[in-house]
């Protein structure tokens, strides 16, 4: 009887041990607890002009400006490292799927770095529920820094589609309309 009882206790301990091993421990903190160092470290100059049929208040424009700056911080990080995960909070699902096709592994070795120095965002459309924004980003000044220190500055015109999802704007589509060396 004592042996049977001991066996039963062992079985119970074994069961709880195996159960404990199967629990997935999520190491990633929720968004609101994370500090986005890439976004915080990024600095650029953004001018916004509204060409949309809807009148926008300063609060909405400030929110857009902050999110657009953060987005570019992550786009530059993606350009340098191919790290698609760091900026996932600033991409829509469709954009994330698109960049995930080219994900092999983050690049550790130094390569080309890109900095965005200036933007002139022209808002073309703004949905009345505040969830969709389309814009042209004219004369975006980009600085590419090559290995070895050589720099190249260029100006590009972009068309961008931003969707408000979660609690900020995310990139859904982008097109390069023109590029000129400076």
């Amino acid at each position, binding site marked *: 009887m004592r042996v049977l009882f001991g066996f039963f206790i062992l079985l119970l301990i074994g069961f709880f041990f195996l159960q404990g091993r199967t629990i997935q421990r999520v190491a990633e903190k929720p968004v609101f607890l994370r500090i986005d160092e890439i976004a915080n470290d990024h600095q650029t100059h953004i001018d916004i002009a509204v060409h949309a*049929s809807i009148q926008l208040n300063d609060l909405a424009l400030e929110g857009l400006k902050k999110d657009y700056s953060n987005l570019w911080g992550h*786009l530059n990080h*993606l*350009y340098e490292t*191919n790290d*698609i995960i760091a900026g996932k909070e600033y991409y829509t699902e*469709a*954009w994330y799927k*698109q*960049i995930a*096709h*080219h994900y*092999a592994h983050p*690049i550790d*070795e130094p*390569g*080309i770095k890109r900095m965005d120095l200036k933007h002139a965002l022209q808002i*073309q*459309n703004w*949905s*009345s*529920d505040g*969830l*969709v924004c*389309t814009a*042209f980003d004219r004369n975006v000044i980009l600085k*590419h820094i*090559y*290995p*070895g220190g050589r720099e190249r500055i*260029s100006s*590009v015109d972009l*068309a*961008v*589609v931003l969707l408000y999802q979660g609690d900020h704007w995310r990139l*859904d*589509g*982008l*097109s*390069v309309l023109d*590029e000129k060396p400076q």
Partner: protein
Amino acid sequence: MRGFSIIQSILISAAFLVFLVSCQNKAIQKPIMLSKSPVLSVPINRLEFSSEGKNWDARLYSFGQPVPLKIQYTETGFYLSQKNQSGVIQGPGILYLSAGKYDYFYDVSLVNMDGPTTMISDYRSPKTVNPDSSLSHQKLFFTIDRWRNVVKSDQTAGYFEESEISLPPIVGIYRAQETDPLSSYYVQPGSCTSIPLQADFNMDKSTFHVVAGPLKDAYNNQVADGTVVAFMYEDGAYSFRMEATAHNGSATVDIPVKTNLTYTLVAAVNETKSLEIQLNP
């Protein structure tokens, strides 16, 4: 004898120089891209280079991100191909080749080979409309390809289009894009504008079974389920009130009857009232 020693020393010096030169690292020349055009079709299947050496590292920077490449060496150089078959954000790109301390860059222009497999993205705002307020609907649409390039197309004259449309006042769930459930928008019924009222006497239970319905809005849509209907009746001395919620366009109550009493009944939904009817057992 002296002339021979001079020739000998020149030969020794020349041999020494040749030895020194051969000991130096030879500079690796920039590989020559055999394709004359800077426009590269993506996915890249075979981009050939004439070069020396077999320790090259290659990266292609599209506007969005680096694109992983494979290198295959040939007798005269190497060729690059893409590791996947996916497209990119079209436009300027940089091809970066490195071998040891030598770095070479090529400005290229990237164009997706699969052509414009595009779809219209159609966003509606607001998602829910009600004929009581407005049937006006904002429609934003643009064309985008599968690699998230915003493109011009026949349907969208520019890159982005916007229009204000008036929806028909017919209750329903509609889709801006047939195949995309997330593009759904909703026309809800408005407020009740007509309340037909009927009552039948149930002798077994001694009750009047009262039906208010069909309850319709100004556009002949059935009112929303859950709309509260108030039934107010009086017998000359006292007044009473019962409430019921509408389901499938009608609301019902059973009013208990006292003998030899006549009730005057009216039903109401907010400000809208029915005609008065008399309830005689």
